[in-house]
């Protein structure tokens, strides 16, 4: 297996881009990434996109983006794994380069969400759940995550406000990220008073649906050899699945797929949780951050929330998370989120994170689909 490097990346700001479509957003992130990577084209384009058909009536989006990004003729395919689409696309790009089959690949995550609103978006998001058992009951990811959060509060004796530190941290870190949607801090009091979306989850512990695109360029060692700029290496990559329906899981409060994928990534990278300098979890809802921290070995079961309450997830804590705002603060363009995470860890590892810079050599991302039925984990290592 060959080494795989990230030589270029680009991203658009996450927001409601009324004047821009998916192809437009994707193209600008691709051009930015290609310029930085110092390459003109690639052997393939992998596009993470979860809801193009549901939200904009556009399937077959990879060929479309290849065409508009000046890559006509290049192999292009869309990767779909709900909220894990971006991570899954990076994983496929990694496999392509590591295997020796391709030398330069472009991985783009893109989602155009603001053409629809309210119930129509919720209906689209609900397609990530088990339609015959969960969707038909009117349960979308927020309702299902609320069921996890309520059970967590019951089993581990905590309250809704105990989850506030996750959102406070994400918003605080988004303030200094020029690509973030919500560049303003929030207070614990605001968290407590926020409108409920699916009790006990409120507007302030749900990541906002928005538009955005992010791209990374992955290269083999022989291509990297000619470059002068510092690069980031992907030292661990693994993916796993769990039952899509919550009711089919032995213990719904343990994210089995997240655990399996992180164990695979740790083993490949030869690292333990203590050596991870920052972690970008799939914080679509605060409860998912807590469960991810536990599944990844940063906290024991039932202690993920305590870790946040004790301030350990902040930029100066033992395991900084959502360092550029996460899904909550930067915004959540569903199929693009996993690629944004990779871009942000690259910024941190290359010392380009500005006011949010943490002292980091090894960073980790975890992209989840649904309530954790897909989990894709990547471990990246910086140049020093």
């Amino acid at each position, binding site marked *: 297996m060959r080494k795989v490097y990230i030589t270029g990346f680009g991203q658009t700001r996450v927001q409601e881009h009324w004047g821009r479509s998916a192809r437009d957003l994707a193209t600008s992130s691709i051009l930015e990434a290609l310029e930085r990577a110092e390459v003109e084209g690639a052997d393939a384009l992998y596009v993470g996109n979860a809801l193009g058909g549901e939200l904009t009536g556009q399937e077959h989006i990879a060929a479309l983006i290849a065409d508009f990004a000046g890559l006509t003729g290049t192999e292009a395919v869309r990767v779909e794994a709900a909220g894990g689409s971006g991570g899954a696309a990076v994983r496929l790009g990694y496999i392509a380069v590591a295997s020796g089959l391709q030398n330069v690949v472009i991985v783009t995550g893109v989602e155009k969400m603001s053409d629809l609103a*309210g*119930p*129509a978006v*919720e*209906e689209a*998001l*609900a397609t990530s759940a088990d339609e*015959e*058992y*969960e*969707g*038909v*009951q*009117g*349960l*979308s990811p*927020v*309702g*299902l995550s*609320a*069921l*996890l959060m*309520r*059970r967590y509060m*019951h089993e581990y004796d905590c309250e809704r406000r105990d989850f506030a530190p996750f959102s406070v941290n994400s918003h605080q870190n988004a303030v200094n990220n020029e690509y973030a949607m919500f560049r303003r801090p929030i207070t614990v009091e605001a968290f407590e008073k926020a*409108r*409920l*979306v*699916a*009790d*006990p*989850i409120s507007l302030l512990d749900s990541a906002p649906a928005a538009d955005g695109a992010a791209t990374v360029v992955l290269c083999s060692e022989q291509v990297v050899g000619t470059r002068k700029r510092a690069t980031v290496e992907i030292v661990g990559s693994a993916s796993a699945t769990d*039952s899509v*329906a*919550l*009711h*089919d899981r032995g213990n*719904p409060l343990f994210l089995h797929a997240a655990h399996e994928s992180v164990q695979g990534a740790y083993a490949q990278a030869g690292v333990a949780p203590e050596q991870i300098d920052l972690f970008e979890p799939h914080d679509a809802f605060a409860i998912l951050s807590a469960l991810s921290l536990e599944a990844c070995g940063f906290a024991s079961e039932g202690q993920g929330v305590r870790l946040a309450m004790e301030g350990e997830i902040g930029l100066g804590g033992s395991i900084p998370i959502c360092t550029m705002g996460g899904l909550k603060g930067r915004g959540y363009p569903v199929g693009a989120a996993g690629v944004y995470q990779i871009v942000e860890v690259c910024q941190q590892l290359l010392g380009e994170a500005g006011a949010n810079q943490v002292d980091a050599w090894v960073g980790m991302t975890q992209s989840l689909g649904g309530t954790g039925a897909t989990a894709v984990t990547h471990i990246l290592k910086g140049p020093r």
Partner: protein
Amino acid sequence: MSLARHWRLQDQRYRLMGTQCEECGARMLGRRYICTRCKSRNLQACNLKGQGAVYSYTVVYDAPSGYEGLVPYPAGLVRLDEGPLVAAQLTDVDIEEVYVGMPVEMVTRRLREYGEDGLIVYGYKFRPKLKDQV
């Protein structure tokens, strides 16, 4: 909207059909072909009685299309007496009264409609167990 899509699920929607593993005894919700616990393929269909207790619950305020008319509606994960969990709306109950551990039973209710001339989908929901049965 497809009639067949709902018609073929009538056993699980109306009778809460499950699957029992003949090897390890595990019971699962709906039709399964391979045991989720021991991987055996020696499975039999079984009916689940629809009696259980609330394992977790929520109240949905922001609903997907087709369910906006119901908000706010309570839903839960119910631990059935036979073992499996099932996700379902809770009905015939005040939102404030639901608690983890509440005894509940299955009833058949209208789940959603597809427009004025469209299909009406029925299926299971769970209500508090009637007092004389508790």
